[in-house]
């Protein structure tokens, strides 16, 4: 009777020690992480999606750290106390008690289930209130910021225009191995520069002319695969002035590693004047370009890379007009 009590006391001692060490280390690690590391976690705070996803990452980390620490402390405790090399390690006891413990099993499954369901719920809420969190939502986004649908609908018409405070529609056209950008609200000019106005909701419409690429505006926290003949829309709202990096993050052939460039967030005034200047400077080129559409398909010479007009071919058109798209040269 005495020995059973002793061993039970012993047992609760081991578990209590493990629990206390875990708790102390977890709280310390979480606090250190949240205040010292968290604010610096990429991708920073340049846009709403960057800021939200940073918080999301940090919350996951605050939950993950105690899990990591708990298992590591348990393992460490085990190694320190129950190694056969230690002099006075008790012989282990087999039998039913060592084979299963309903309380421990139920507790473990309950805790992991609760944590997992919380994380899934939290992630879903963040995804929805973050309007897709900067990820590509495909051609028919279900989570859109206010005004985005109207701006997108208007973008295909000649009436499209932009003023500070409105949603800016930017088309990202990926091809081996560079990105170009079209601004439908400024006459649909195409440029290799990605300039964005600050404090503005941007609707990126990402498509590709050849293989699958991925448009990753790193500091903006926007990532959307560029698929041929598919429009992939991602939203974010700029919050800070500055430069950002654009990289391709889907393997797209041998020069994939060199497919990167830089963009810039400007004040709305500077942006407007840059856009107006570029629009007029590029007017002749823009006239040669196909009409602005969400996606572009190769022309009859497409296999050879003939995407641009040669006088007899209509190279770009929307995927909605299947069958009518290819005039042979």
């Amino acid at each position, binding site marked *: 009777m005495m020995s059973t009590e002793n061993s039970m006391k012993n047992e609760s001692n081991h578990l209590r020690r493990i629990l206390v060490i875990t708790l102390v280390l977890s709280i310390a690690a979480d606090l250190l992480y949240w205040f010292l590391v968290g604010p610096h976690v990429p991708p920073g705070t340049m846009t709403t999606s960057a800021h939200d996803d940073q918080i999301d990452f940090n919350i996951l980390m605050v939950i993950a750290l105690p899990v990591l620490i708990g298992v590591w402390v348990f393992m460490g405790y085990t190694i320190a106390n129950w190694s056969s090399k230690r002099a006075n390690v008790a012989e282990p006891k087999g039998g039913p008690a060592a*084979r299963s413990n309903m309380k421990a099993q139920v507790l473990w499954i309950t805790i992991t289930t609760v944590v997992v369901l919380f994380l899934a719920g939290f992630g879903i809420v963040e995804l929805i209130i973050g309007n897709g969190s900067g990820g590509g939502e495909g051609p028919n986004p279900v989570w859109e910021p206010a005004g985005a649908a109207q701006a997108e609908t208007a973008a295909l018409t000649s009436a499209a225009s932009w003023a500070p405070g409105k949603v800016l529609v930017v088309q990202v056209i990926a091809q081996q191995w560079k990105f170009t950008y079209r601004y439908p609200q400024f006459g649909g000019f195409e440029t290799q520069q990605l300039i964005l106005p600050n404090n503005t909701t941007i609707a990126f419409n990402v498509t590709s002319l050849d293989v699958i690429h991925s448009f990753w505006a790193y500091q903006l926290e926007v990532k959307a695969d560029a698929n041929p003949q598919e429009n992939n829309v991602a939203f974010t709202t700029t919050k800070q002035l500055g430069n950002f990096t654009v990289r391709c993050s889907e393997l797209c052939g041998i020069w994939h590693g060199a497919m990167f460039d830089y963009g810039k967030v400007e004040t709305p005034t500077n942006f407007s004047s840059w856009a107006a200047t570029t629009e007029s400077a590029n007017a002749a080129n823009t006239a040669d370009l196909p009409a602005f559409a969400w996606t572009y398909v190769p022309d009859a010479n497409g296999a050879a890379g003939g995407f641009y007009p040669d006088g007899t071919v209509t190279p770009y058109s929307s995927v909605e007009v299947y069958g009518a798209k290819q005039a042979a040269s």
Partner: protein
Amino acid sequence: MTISAERPTKSVASSTSPPSPHQGVSWTQRPGWLSQHMGTAIIAAVLGYAFGHWLGNYVTSGYPYIANSGQNSSANALALIFAVVGWLLGIGALNYPLAKLVGKEADHETSVEGWSKYFRYTLDHKVVGLQYVVGVLLFLFTGGLLAMAIRTELLSPTTHVFGPGTYIEIVSEHGTIMMMMATSIILGPLGNYFVPLMIGSRRMAFPRIEAFSFWIFIAGYGVIFSALPYGGFPTGWTGYAPLQTQAGPGMISYLLGFAVIGLGMMAAGFNIAATIINFRAPGMTWSRVPIFVWAILSTAALLTLATPTLFAAGLFGVLDKTVQTAFYVTEHGGSSYLWENLFWFFGHPEVYIMALPGFGIVAEILPVFTRKPLFAYKVAAAGMIGVALLSFFVWQHHLFQSGINPDMRPLFMLTTELISIPTGFIFLVGMGTLYKAKIRFEVPMLFAMAVFFNFLIGGVTGVFLSDVPVNVTVHGGFFVLSHFHYTIMGGLLFAFMAGLYYWLPKMTGRMMNKKLGQWHFWTMFVFFNLTFFPMFIIGLLGQPRRVFTYAKNLQMLNDFSSISAFLLGFSFLIFFANLMWSMYIKPVKAPANPWDSLGLEWQTANPVPVYNFERIPVIMTDPYHYSEVGAPALADLGVGGSGDRVSSSGKSDK
């Protein structure tokens, strides 16, 4: 339940008895140079390749810009198909079906003594197991050398050693060969060798299919490297269309390579599942089956059910590239999303094909070195089945940013995070078994403990990836790369090493050197973590996968990772040296049961006779009654009556 009374051993024994004496000596086993073996297989494969290549150029001769251009996908496709058929003919894998096809009585493959059986179409599952050990190590070392090349290029932020074309070729070959290796690294060698021994069977259900799965696995190695003369393939192991459609004939080697390996995977999975279900000894009820067998069974189920998708997807790709179909060609009515979905519908179960056997090994050897029963056996088995089932419902998390229907994202986020519940069971099982144990830190145990450390990091970062908002940051970057190296290398490969150190004494009768084993473990463990942990940070700082250039401020981290990777490579040299030293140069005879295991596989004679058990054992209980006073006997081996019953309590073994 009194199984022995209900199912007499005699009838079981006769049903698994060796094939009846045959009419003549088969071609596979004929002595001397008249026989079929690896040499004839190579000759037949080369002849097949040449013929297929010629045929491909002949049938495309109406297209002068393709035929004999050196860029003829049809020629490569036919060459590889004929090479594989030649290889199978040459090794003798088709003798039996061909004889049956023409209505003749087929020769039975008899067992050959001596080392030459390892180079033949041998039906003994123990020979196939050892063949697989060498096979997967060949894949592993090749892939490892390619990894060294990748890390060499990444020493500098600009291109400096390899050109971008060569670099992407190396990356693609590394990924593909390692994935192929990982599908079979445990199921092939250890599954084939030990499953029959652990369930008390004399053989596999389909010995010819078992031998076929190994030899076609080796053919896959040749097929995948046949891309090299064409400049490899530029798509990485994921092979995304339309890049796949755009690539040269090397792509055919990738597509057919996966199809060939896929045949082997399906064959192996089918055979092992059938064996486990039908060939358990009397008394080996589902609640007494060793946990490793549960892991292999769930893996085999995944192999059988998931691989056909890859096989079909690969053949669609071959058709696109040869006869100009348009499965994946968007502008002709196909869809690049079709490949993404088919590939990952296979690819995600594949991830668990690579995780479950590792869990099985760890759970199997933990009780041996803790001298405690396996904690929560039923939870462990349920966890493996749960993982296997759920793994079919998560694949779209690879496509979160691809532009597929966003409505599905919450669902796939939920299913992906749910799968961490059954995956977490393995930690419950491990921690419960370690609790108040008496742990012997032998080399296999060190590797098993390391699996918990590494897989925990791999698993937790998997939850980060499954969260769609965080996925926007980490998708397609080095964070993912690090995550899956932590699960596959940190989990599967460490578990394989644990299994190898644990079971090689049984397989070869020779002990691995302990000192070298410890050196191997510590260098591998430390440098594995030093190589891959920085990659999480590199990924968060914005480096995408498969690039040869990166931001200059990431050079220090990349160099640190590269140098650690070279030292990690060095740890494999220690392993190789240990293998050579302990197996060939200075072999030390292994005791019959060096780890005092209770497992049935250790109760067989040493070396294991061709038919494993003199009599089919009758199983009395599960093999985890360590440190239990008055534990029931594990099994009646039927040798010399009840006096020889194997004790199942840990202490009385010695």
